[in-house]
Every structure is written in C-alpha cells, then in structure tokens.
C-alpha cells in the first residue's frame, strides 16, 4: 500500500512539474525542472520492484542520464548561447497552461479506458505518462527557441519513459540501456546544432529558420 502511495505521490509531482514547465519561459529553471523529473523517474523503479542488480543498474543509469548528463548538456548549451528565456512563444503561457490542464484531464479520461494488467490497477502511471507526453508535445509546438524545443522533446521522452517503468521487469537491460544511450547521444548532437544555430543566426529563434520551404 505504501509503495502505491509513494509512487503516486512522485507521479503527481511529475505532473505538477509539467505545469510549471508550461508556465515558465526561463531556460535555467526549465532545465532544473526537467532534471528533477528525471531524478523522480529514476527513483520510481526502486519503489516498484524488489531489489536486483538489474534494478540497481537501471536506477543508476536513469539518474545519471536523465538527472545528470542530459540536463548538464542543455545547461552548457544555454550558457554558450547566452539565451536566458523564451521571449514570445507562439502561444502565450496562460493559454498553454489551460491547454495543459485540458490535456491532463484527457489523459485521465483516456487512461481509464485502457485495460491495465491486474497488478497496475489504481496506479497513476498511465495517466501521468500520457499527460507528460502531451505536455512535451505542447512545449515542442508552442515554443520558438531551440532550447525550449529540446526541453519539450525531453519532457515527451520522460512521458514515454514513465510508461516504460511498468515494463521494468519485462524489458531486457540492453534495450533500456539503448534507450538511455540514444537519448544521451541525441541530446549531445542537438546541443552541438544549437551552438551552430546561435553562431550562424545570432539567435536561437527557430522561427527564423525559414530558408527552406516550397516557393
């Protein structure tokens, strides 16, 4: 009972963090929030399944990649490009928050309709996963700065990862390691491209990337 209680508390915090992310344009703060989400994701499997080396490995991996390295890479990109905050998102912060709330409600509605395995009934995993995924999509589509978009991608990935936690025992370590590695390398490459965008365009506003389109 306590395990369920604990995981649900953590997942609620994750969902609350989504809202803070949707409501802020400050890059420094957003990176810390994404890192905090990563740490919580890292703690969840430990609460959920009994100890094994497999579990220890995954926990360390998630904490290291999602809570440490990936946010660090983004923080470096922010420092180098001297971008402080999202200036004018395509959609205002207030409106995004409202959309975020609607998405979260939809996530709960949708999650209630899916058949869960008996052991997972009553958990918040599925709604939290869908809500976080949708929050990531919102961030991706409404923000203009390259860094905010990467953060959106990371939130989306976190959402998918929450669902993956239900499968901790079913997934081979190799695949989980591959997922984390892909995230790490992907963020690394994105960081490099961000550096070049800021050098070439002296701004990280991706709405300036309009040279390529159909004429």
């Amino acid at each position, binding site marked *: 009972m306590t395990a369920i209680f604990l995981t649900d508390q953590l997942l609620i915090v994750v969902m609350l963090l989504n809202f803070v992310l949707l409501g802020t344009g400050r890059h420094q703060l957003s990176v810390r929030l994404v890192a905090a989400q990563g740490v919580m994701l890292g703690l969840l499997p430990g609460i959920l399944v009994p100890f094994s080396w497999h579990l220890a490995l995954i926990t360390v991996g998630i904490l290291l990649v999602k809570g440490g390295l990936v946010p660090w890479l983004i923080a470096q990109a922010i420092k180098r490009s001297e971008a402080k905050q999202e200036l004018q998102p395509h959609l205002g912060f207030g409106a995004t928050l409202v959309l975020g709330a609607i998405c979260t409600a939809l996530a709960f509605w949708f999650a209630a309709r899916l058949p869960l395995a008996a052991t997972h009934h009553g958990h918040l995993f599925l709604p939290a996963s869908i809500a976080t995924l949708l929050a990531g999509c919102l961030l991706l589509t409404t923000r203009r700065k390259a860094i905010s978009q990467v953060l959106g991608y990371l939130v989306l990935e976190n959402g*998918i990862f929450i669902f993956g936690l239900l499968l901790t025992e079913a*997934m*081979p370590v190799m695949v989980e390691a591959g997922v984390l590695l*892909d995230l790490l390398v992907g963020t690394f490459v994105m960081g490099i491209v961000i550096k070049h*965008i800021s050098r070439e365009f002296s701004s990280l506003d991706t709405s300036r990337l309009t040279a*390529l389109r159909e004429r």
Partner: protein
Amino acid sequence: MLHALILIPLVGALIAGLLSDDQRRPLLLPLVALLHTGLTLAELWHPSGPAHGGWVQLDPLGSIVLLTISLLFLGCSVYAVSYLRHDRPERPNRFLCLSLLSCLAAMTLVCISQHLGLLWVAVAVATVSMAPQIYYNTNARSIEATWKYLLIGSVGIALALLGVYFLAYATLVAGVDATLQLESLLEVAPKLDQGWLRLGFVFLLVGFGVKLGLAPLHTWKPDAYGEAPGLVGALLAGGLTNCALLALIRVYQLMLAAGGDDRLYRVPMMVLGLFSMLVAAVFLVRQADFKRMLAYSSVEHMGLMVLALAIGKGALAGMLLHLIGNGLAKGALFLSSGTLHRVYGSKSTLGVQGALRRVPWSGSILLGGFLAVTAFPPSLLFLSEFTIITAAFRQGSWVAAVLLLLALAVVFLGMAPIVLGMVLGDPPSRLPSTSQRERLLTVLPPLVLLLLVVVLGVCLPPPLADLVHQGAALLRGGCP
C-alpha cells in the same frame, strides 16, 4: 559471421576517427564497403543460424534490405573517395566518414535484428548518426535542415518507442510469457491483448512513418535531402528509409499473425500510402530545386511501398522488388545530381541546363535514372509497379489502384519537363568558371547502380527471385 557484418564498419568508424589525414581517410570507406558487401553475399549464400538466443538472424526480408543497402553503400563509398579528395579537399571529413561508417553498422543491425527492442535501438542509432552527414556543408541552410531532421526524427523515434512499449504491455496484459523477440511474439500473437496491440500499431506506424517520410509526416525530408551532399541523400533515400520500411514490415508481420479484423491496420496504411503519393505528386510539379524534387520522388515511392504492403497478397513480391529497385535507382539519381550541383554551382532547375553537353555522363545517368524511377521498361521498377498494380486490381482495391495510377502519371508528367529541361539544350553561357568536373569515380558508381536496376529488370537472378518469393511468403503469413 553476423557479428563481423557489424563489427567491420564499427572498427572502420573507429579508425576513421583516429586517422588525422583528410586525404587518406576517405579510402577507408570503399575498403570497409567491399568487405561488407563480400560478407553480405557470403551470408546470403551460406546463411548462418540465429545468434544471441535468436536476437539476431538474417531472414529473407532482412536479406533483401541488407543486400540493397550494402550495394548502395558500396557505390556511395567509391563516389565519396573522389568527392572528398578532389572536389572538397578543403573541408575536414572526419565526422562525415565516422558517421557514414557507424550508420552502416546501425543499418546492418536493423536488417539482422529479430527483436523489436533491438530493432528500435538500431533505427534510433541510424537516425542520430545521419545528422552529422546532413550537416556536412555547415552553412545556414544545412543547419536548418539538420535541426528539423533531428527534432522531427527524434520525436518520431520516441513515438515508435512508445509503440514498442505498448506491444510489450500487450503481452503483459494477456499474461503470456513472451519477450519482444519476433519469433516468440509471432507465435503468441493471437493471444495478445487486442487493444494494446492496436494502440502499439498506431504509434509504430506514426513513429516509423516519420522516418519513412510518409505524408503528412514528411516535412523534414525535402530539407534534409536538399541540403545534404548527394551521397548522403542517396543513403537517406535508399538506406535509412528502407530500414524504417523493414521496421514497419516487422510490425506488419506481427499484426498479420495476430489475426482479427485486418482492415484495422490495412486501411490506415493504405490511406497514408496513397496520401503520400498524391502529396508528392502535387509538390513534384514545377519543383524549382532538383534535389528537393528527388526528395518528393522518395516520398512517392515510400508511399507506394506502404500501399503495396497494405494491399497484400500479390503486391508483396512487387513491394520487395520495388524496395531493391528504388534503393539502387535513388543512389544513381542522387549521386549524379550531386555532380551536377557542384559543376553548375546551383541546384535550381533554372540554373542547370544542357547537362548532356556539359557533363555528358552525369547528365545521361540523371536522364536514365529518371526513366528508371518512373518505371520505364526494362527498369526493375516497371516490373515491381506492374506487379503491384495488377495485384491491386485483382484484390478489388479499385479506388486505390486508380488513385495510384493517377499519382504515377502526375509524377511522370511533373518530373519529365524538369529533368528534360536540365539535360537538354545548351549550357548557360555565363556559367561561373569552376574546377569542378565529372571524374571517373564520380561517374562509375551511379552508372553501375543504374545498370543494375536495368539488368535486374530484364533478368532477375534465380537466388534473388527465390529470396523475394520467400520474403513475400513470410508476409502472407506462411513459412519461408
């Protein structure tokens, strides 16, 4: 043996990263490619059994894709030697060579993996390793293209991961003890939870659809193909997209084995496929940039193959033939258009005229490639498209067949004036003088690839024909 197929490109990538000589490094590419092609042929001749508890194995479907990619990469690697050493001597090529070779390793892993989790990892690695290649020209336009490719591609891959998770959950809910290994998954498929299975299918279709460039998920494609060097465009259009198609084929196998109402997965694929063809046809007409034109041609052909997969039965053999033909023909087209781009210093269809006079070989290859890719006999694509269309009519998919024919006609009519305008006539008189010209090694690879498409169209070697039949049988749900 299967290990060597992956290890050789990886070791090559390592050496490429360590070598400091920009002139010698490109020589590594054809060396690795030759070894890879040789090993692939040996593997097809004497297949080694499953390895790693059945995680990797080369089945007929994987063989077809692997053979196509290996041949295409061989062509591209020979072209790259001349391109990097003579045409772009001023530009460092360490990251390009490194990522080309690691991409080959990842694409090989896609072909041989029999585990959906491993397959996903391989597709993801191939996706990321393509990014430095698109970025090779390091100018504002290539940055924009790389950014779009990375962001859209990463989201697509993430959605595919969710699809894989849903499939895994479908086994969990059904209480069957199955891993994500294809063989065991196909066995228990009818018992899987249908709701999760279908949800997984939707996410996998969208996720891999982004990689395939199915409309409306194709927006990264013209940008990436347009800004990447010709040889990278060839690998994207004939390599990476074919890998994504193979991934989708694996999902199709699973849905087929699961049984139930097959319209649930056939209809979405049919709609996406047809929509891609129509969108590509619309954007092909009066396209002002010939590399973007080729990108839309790729969208069209991927749509056609997904449509063929959805039609099923007789169209399946056609689809597999098309996969080979399209991969090789795209190689010829992108490599020759890369040469044209450099010689004319422009990729605008207005800036390039009289290619047959200025660069006779590349001009003829472009013309030949255009005819091959629009399914003029005796191209292999004629055979494949004919098979697919006949099958569509036999299946009673009249609407699909008619729309397909319409799209093919519009594509031909759209591409013909562009390509003819480029190759015929006189070269513009005020062309900037340039040291760029065609060389033996930049002409030979696309020529050979084009000839292969024609030769395979005239007479398919019996072993390859067997492979296609076995592959098609697998996709009909039978035994190989």
